[in-house]
Structures are given as structure tokens and as C-alpha cells.
């Protein structure tokens, strides 16, 4: 069958089906069906959710908690799994929001089956975003001669509604000032969300006032909640933040399983959680920010063969074009310059074999630009890809006009210039088993696309995560929700044993992911602090605790609460246990691997002992790569009788632990 025949067949099928439609009957059914289904799939699940066999550790779930009415379900309370009608929630939302001002209420359900126009109209009750509710969080530069105010006639809306906000700007100085504003929504302690498009610049003469109306499109799929408005102004080329509301996200619908099928996690709900296996508990939760990387310009594309097939990883190709500047053009390929040249398509370069079955074609495009095509592939596919590839003159941008047979482009675009990266991490474990540790991580502005995270000589599977292409290997599964939003689930290895989490369990968890917000993350953090993971690798609730760390050089505390000192350095700390230990090994783990370096061993530990741990920053005879190396502890109980783990002594103390790390700079 050729192309024309296929199109003709499609048209015949289309025309025949269209001709058989009973419009009047089906119109009635559609309208009836919409009413019948309203409220379906809407469930509220709270922390410690009671679904048998499942613990969904999320926090506040009843819509709207501002104002703190008694009828509001608090996040610390167990929330029943129940059917909730949107209409009831909406009325609560409206009454609360009538008493508040600088907030954007998104009352509508997050998915189409439960959103009705009636519900949403009832909440958009009007009111002003007056500037009295905003505080200046970062003053304009001293030279600024602008005053800015923000007003709006709407304070609420449904997903896909547009909310107009008026920004009034006055130039109080004596010179012409260029000003552009951008309005977005800020989540508490998070980066700006929902940008509303390119800012529109205005020039103001001395004493001139101008108004600018900016529309916020409330994204489809955003969770119900209360969101903070943020206005960022750009005066000339200097960005500065002008106003931020004091409101924060209050609540979010976190129905986990049904929602994810129709509503992907979004940048509006930064952290994610899934159905955690029975018996697991949160052991940490934190967010952190990594500054923008200053990497040289580069572009890459990743192609995978038959990515939609649920079979183990198949051949893949990665194309990368980079500007090396003055660096060695064969950086990373020692000796390659002495090998014969080969020509694929329009490119002449050299072939390297980075691992068996993983050839790489390296081409020096000019004095600074380098092209690399490689992967788990063969020379024929390298040649086929090179044949269909063009590279823009004097840039690092490529265009793949044709792909080798069977391959599909799964990622393509610039790999540098990504902005500040923010991550939200939630860890789960069972008992005190390090080998049970699961980490769920959401990343905004990931530095590397999921496709490139796990493709390499190590075995990797391409898997389906609810319609997203995921990559499973090396104890983790990674997938991109959007180019700027990535989710990763990781299982950990302990000192000597593999994780007890299987790949299949990791995948099951990934397929139940649903978004949570910062408040819920805080709740999980609190829960984790009450019963942390201080791994003894025994199925007991007792633990070993580290406390009172002091160090030379002096310790500092990271944003996630981990105490660090630089190398060479020495930690002095107390280690206590809730039951006698036979052997306690103290070591460090690399940030990029599960390798363990033992630094100290206690022959026994009965209760509390002060220990010193020194590390010179040398690992395996070489200076360790820069990064933070967490201190880990493995202990062997003196009494291995299972009964010894369950006494009162073991469970009477369950709060507090101190995490420490060495920092190699």
C-alpha cells in the first residue's frame, strides 16, 4: 500500500463513520453523560491515607484553608478517602476568599470530568488586587524612578480562564525610562510559574504614567488552590522584582491515580508523590536550588529505536554539537587524533569505541566546534544519521532531516543555557533499612533531558509512564513531563546489598505519581523528622542517631539541614543507639554512586559514644571529585534475635537525627 492508497482508505473510513452518526441521539447522550459523570474520580486523600495496602503521604487536601475555619481539614489530620462533590467545595472556597485580597483562587477541579462552568462562575466574585496586600520583596535599584501598582477586577478563575491585571507605572524621575513587566504566579519559596508571555516594553517620559493590562491564563490542569501573584519589572536591561503577594498556596487536590491520567504534574505543583508501598514512611523531604550552569554552547538530539515498545533498551543515537573554545578538540578521546579519518555523509571525522558496541563519530567542524554522533549502535546507523544531518554555519545548532530506519527522535534542543534548577525531594523507607530507601524527585529546569540521563553503556529500558517516555536503569526511572519539568524515582543501595526495591515496584510507583504543593511537602517533612531513617539495616524501628556535630574546619548547614565540613576535615559527633550494636561502620558515599568508603569502625556500641571521623578527600588513591559526600552508618546489632528489635526501648525515642557530609571543593 502506498501513501495515496492509505490516504484514500482513511478518507473512506472517515466518510463512512461520519455518515453513520446519529447526531440528535448522541447530542442528548453527551449532555446527559456530562451531568452523570460530574464528580466522578474526585477523591480527597490525606496524609496516612487509609486505603488498604497503600499509604499516600500527602498533606492538606480539602480545598481552601485560608481563614482557618473549623470545618477545614488540616493537613496533620488523617483525611478520609471519600467522594467529594465539587459544589460543596466551591461554596467553601468562595466564602473564604471573599475575606482575602491578594490571591488568585483557582477553584475549579483540575480535570474536565469534574469541572463545570457553574461552579467556576460562582467563585469569580470580583474584588481588587490592591497593592496594600503586596510587599516589596526586592526593592528596585536605587536609580529607579518608577512607582508601580497592580489592580485587577477578578480574584478567581477556573482553569483556562484569563484574568486581567492592570499594572500602572509612573516615572517620577527626570529621564526617559524603559520598563517592561511580566506577571506570573509564585508558589511559596518556589520560582515563578505561569509566565504570561513576553513582556511588553513601554517607555515613559519624565512624570509620565502608563497602564499595561496583562492577562494571566490559568493553565489547564492546574490544581485547585490559592496562588500568589508576582510582578517582575524589567527596567532597561536590569531585572528587578517589584511586588509579591504575601499569599501562598493553601491546598491542592491530590487524588493520585485517576488524576494523573488526565492531568500531568505541572510546574504549578512542584513536588510529586505516588502510591508508596505498604509499610513505608517518609524519611525526608526538602527542596533545593542549583544555580544556573555556565556551560559552553551546545545542542543535542537523542534518537531511540522503537521507543514505544515495552522491551529492553534498544539501539540509540545521541548527536551533540558543542563549542569547545580553546579546549583540546579531542577532549575525552585520547589518542583519537592518530586514528584514520572516515567520512559519513558530509562529515569527515574519526571513530572512537567508548565501550563495546558503542561507537562514536567525532568530527571537528572548525577551530572550536565539535560534532559527535554515538550511542549503542553501529557504523551503518552512524553513517545514516550523518547523511541526514546538517549543521548551521557558525552555530551549534543541527537539523536532522531524516532519521535512520527504526529510530525516533525523543529529545532535541540546546543543552546549555538552562536556568536555575530547583528540585523537590521526598524519601521513603521501611523500618531502618537503607536498602528500602526510595526517593521521588521533581526537577524544574533540569540540566539534562531524561533521555540523556540514563542512555549509556549500562543497560537501560525505555518504559511507558502513563504516556510519557521513561528511562529505567541503574536503579532509577526518569521521565520528562515537559522539557522544563522532570520526574525521577530512585532506589538506593546500602553498604553491601542491593536495594530491596525492584524495577517493577519502581515503575509501579512512577505510574501513580501525582502533584503535591509546598505546604504538603512541609507536612511530609514534619512527619519524616518524627521518624527519620538512621539505617541499621535491620527490620526494626530502633535507630542509631548522630548528634552534636562539631568539625574542623567549622561546620556549616546546607539548606536541606545537612551539616557539612570541607576536606581535609574531621567531624566529632555523638552516636547513640537504642540497643546494643556489635559493629558500627562509619563511611562516606559518593554523590554520584553508591560506592562506600569506610572511615571508622566501632567494635561495639552500647548506648552513646563520641567518635571522630576524619577524611582527607582521597578516594581510591585519588582526590575525590568535587561534591558533597554524605556520611553513612551501617550497624550490626549485638542481638540478632528479631524480638530484640521490638521492645519499648527501641521505640521510645524516635525523633531527631543529624545528617552530616564532607564537602570536596
Amino acid at each position: 500500500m502506498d501513501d495515496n492508497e492509505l490516504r484514500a482508505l482513511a478518507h473512506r473510513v472517515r466518510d463512512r463513520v461520519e455518515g453513520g452518526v446519529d447526531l440528535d441521539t448522541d447530542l442528548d447522550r453527551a449532555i446527559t453523560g456530562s451531568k452523570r459523570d460530574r464528580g466522578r474520580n474526585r477523591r480527597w486523600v490525606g496524609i496516612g491515607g487509609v486505603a488498604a495496602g497503600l499509604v499516600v503521604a500527602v498533606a492538606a487536601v480539602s480545598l481552601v484553608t485560608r481563614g482557618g475555619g473549623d470545618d477545614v481539614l488540616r493537613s496533620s489530620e488523617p483525611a478520609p478517602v471519600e467522594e467529594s462533590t465539587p459544589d460543596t467545595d466551591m461554596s467553601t472556597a468562595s466564602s473564604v476568599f471573599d475575606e482575602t485580597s491578594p490571591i488568585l483562587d483557582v477553584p475549579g477541579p483540575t480535570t474536565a470530568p469534574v469541572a463545570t462552568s457553574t461552579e467556576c462562575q460562582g467563585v469569580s466574585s470580583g474584588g481588587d488586587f490592591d497593592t496594600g496586600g503586596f510587599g516589596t520583596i526586592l526593592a528596585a535599584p536605587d536609580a529607579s524612578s518608577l512607582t508601580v501598582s497592580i489592580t485587577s477586577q477578578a480574584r478567581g478563575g477556573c482553569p483556562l480562564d484569563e484574568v486581567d491585571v492592570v499594572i500602572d507605572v509612573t516615572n517620577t524621575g527626570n529621564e526617559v525610562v524603559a520598563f517592561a513587566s511580566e506577571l506570573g504566579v509564585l508558589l511559596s519559596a518556589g520560582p515563578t510559574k505561569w509566565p504570561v508571555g513576553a513582556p511588553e516594553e513601554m517607555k515613559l517620559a519624565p512624570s509620565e504614567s502608563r497602564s499595561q493590562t496583562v492577562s494571566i491564563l490559568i493553565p489547564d490542569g492546574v490544581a485547585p488552590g490559592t496562588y500568589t501573584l508576582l510582578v517582575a519589572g524589567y527596567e532597561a536591561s536590569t531585572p528587578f522584582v517589584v511586588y509579591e503577594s504575601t499569599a501562598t498556596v493553601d491546598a491542592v487536590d491530590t487524588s493520585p491515580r485517576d488524576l494523573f491520567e488526565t492531568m500531568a504534574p505541572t510546574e504549578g505543583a512542584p513536588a510529586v508523590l505516588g502510591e508508596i508501598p505498604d509499610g513505608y514512611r517518609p524519611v525526608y523531604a526538602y527542596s533545593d536550588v542549583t544555580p544556573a550552569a555556565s556551560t559552553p554552547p551546545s545542542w543535542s538530539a537523542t534518537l531511540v529505536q522503537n521507543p514505544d515498545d515495552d522491551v529492553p533498551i534498544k539501539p540509540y543515537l545521541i548527536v551533540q554539537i558543542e563549542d569547545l573554545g580553546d579546549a583540546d578538540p579531542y577532549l575525552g578521546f585520547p589518542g583519537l587524533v592518530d586514528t584514520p579519518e572516515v567520512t559519513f555523509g558530509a562529515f569527515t571525522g574519526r571513530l572512537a569505541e567508548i565501550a563495546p558496541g558503542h561507537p562514536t563519530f567525532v568530527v571537528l567542524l572548525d577551530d572550536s566546534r565539535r560534532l559527535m554522533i554515538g550511542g549503542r549502535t553501529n557504523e551503518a546507523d552512524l553513517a545514516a544519521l550523518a547523511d541526514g544531518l546538517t549543521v548551521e554555519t557558525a552555530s551549534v545548532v543541527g537539523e536532522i532531516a531524516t532519521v535512520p530506519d527504526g529510530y525516533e527522535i525523543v529529545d532535541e534542543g540546546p543543552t546549555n543555557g538552562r536556568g536555575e534548577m530547583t528540585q523537590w525531594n521526598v524519601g521513603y523507607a521501611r523500618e531502618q533499612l537503607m536498602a528500602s530507601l526510595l526517593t521521588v524527585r521533581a526537577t524544574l529546569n533540569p540540566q539534562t533531558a531524561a533521555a540523556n540521563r540514563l542512555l549509556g553503556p549500562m543497560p537501560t529500558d525505555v518504559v511507558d509512564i502513563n504516556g510519557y517516555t521513561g528511562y529505567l536503569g541503574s536503579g532509577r526511572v526518569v521521565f520528562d513531563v515537559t522539557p522544563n519539568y522532570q520526574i525521577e524515582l530512585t532506589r538506593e543501595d546500602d553498604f553491601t546489598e542491593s536495594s530491596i526495591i525492584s524495577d517493577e515496584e519502581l515503575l509501579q510507583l512512577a505510574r501513580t505519581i501525582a502533584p503535591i504543593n509546598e505546604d504538603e511537602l512541609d507536612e511530609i517533612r514534619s512527619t519524616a523528622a518524627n521518624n527519620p531513617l538512621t539505617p541499621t539495616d535491620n527490620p526494626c524501628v530502633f535507630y542509631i542517631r548522630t548528634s552534636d556535630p562539631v568539625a574542623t574546619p567549622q561546620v556549616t548547614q546546607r539548606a536541606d539541614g545537612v551539616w557539612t565540613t570541607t576536606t581535609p576535615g574531621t567531624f566529632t559527633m555523638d552516636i547513640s543507639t537504642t540497643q546494643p550494636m556489635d559493629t558500627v561502620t562509619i563511611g562516606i558515599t559518593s554523590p554520584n554512586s553508591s560506592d562506600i568508603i569506610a572511615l571508622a569502625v566501632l567494635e561495639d556500641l552500647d548506648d552513646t559514644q563520641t567518635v571522630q571521623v576524619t577524611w582527607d578527600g582521597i578516594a581510591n588513591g585519588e582526590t575525590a571529585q568535587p561534591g558533597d559526600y554524605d556520611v553513612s552508618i551501617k550497624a550490626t546489632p549485638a542481638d540478632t534475635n528479631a524480638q530484640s528489635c521490638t521492645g519499648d526501648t527501641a521505640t521510645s525515642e524516635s525523633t531527631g537525627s543529624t545528617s552530616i557530609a564532607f564537602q570536596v571543593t
Partner: protein
Amino acid sequence: MAAGGDYESTFRSEYPRLVALGVMMSGSVDVGHDLAQETMARAYDRWDQVGDYEHLGGWLRRVLKNLVIDRYRRAKREAATLDRLDRHEVSEDDPDVAQWSRLVETLPPRQRVVITLFYGDDLSVAEIASVLEMAEGTVKSALFKARQRLSVDLASEVADG
């Protein structure tokens, strides 16, 4: 693709095509009808928001696509439904419908969606990319692959679409 208006007129103009696309994407007459029904029910539920969309047709196709993929995923988890989806249960007295169903049943859901919009809805690659919120390169890749599986003559350039 129609712009917004009153619900009934939109239903009458868009629904038959959605049924056809649903049938072609799912490979099943019954499932295709169900998916189109569900799509229009969702549109009705939020008509105040979507009714004025300039590209309402694109929104409807995106919802339909999501429903197809959702259904496929559920089907993979439920053997009974899997049978229903993967054994082209076209009513299928019509030989063309049966032939189309046999063809697309070999394709993963996203390729079904893309190839249906390309051949059945006569959308260009750029239009499909816009409707599905995908990169054009991804659409091209999906088309290449689908056509390859269907043994369609690749001499006809996708980019021309």
C-alpha cells in the same frame, strides 16, 4: 477545525469527525463512539471556558487523543479490555473500516493518533504538532515510524504534509 459558538452547533459540526477519528485511532467503532461522546461531554462540562476558543477543534482533538491513550493504558492493565482494543472488534461489516483497524492495531497509541490526524483529518505536520502540543520533529518521527510499520511507501515526503 471549528471555532467556538453555541454548544449544539459545535456538536453538530465537530462530533461526526470526532467519531471518525475516534474509530480510526482506537480501531473500534464502539470505542470510537464512546471516546467522541466523552470528549463532547467534557466540552459541555466546561463550555463557558472552551466555547470561545479560537482553536476549539484542536482542543477537542487533544482531549480525544488523551482519552485514546488513557484507554489504551487502562486496556493494557485490564486483560478483558485489552482484548477489546487489540482485537479489532470493528462491527465491521464495512471492509474498509475492518482493513483500517487491522492496520492501526499494530501501532502504539501515539502513532495511531498521529497517523489518523494526518491521513484521516488531513492535518499537516505543523497542525498535528500544534494540536498535540508536540514538536514537529516528533510528529515526523511518529509518522515515519507508523508508515514504516504499515509498509507505506516512504517516497512520499511527510514534510510535504
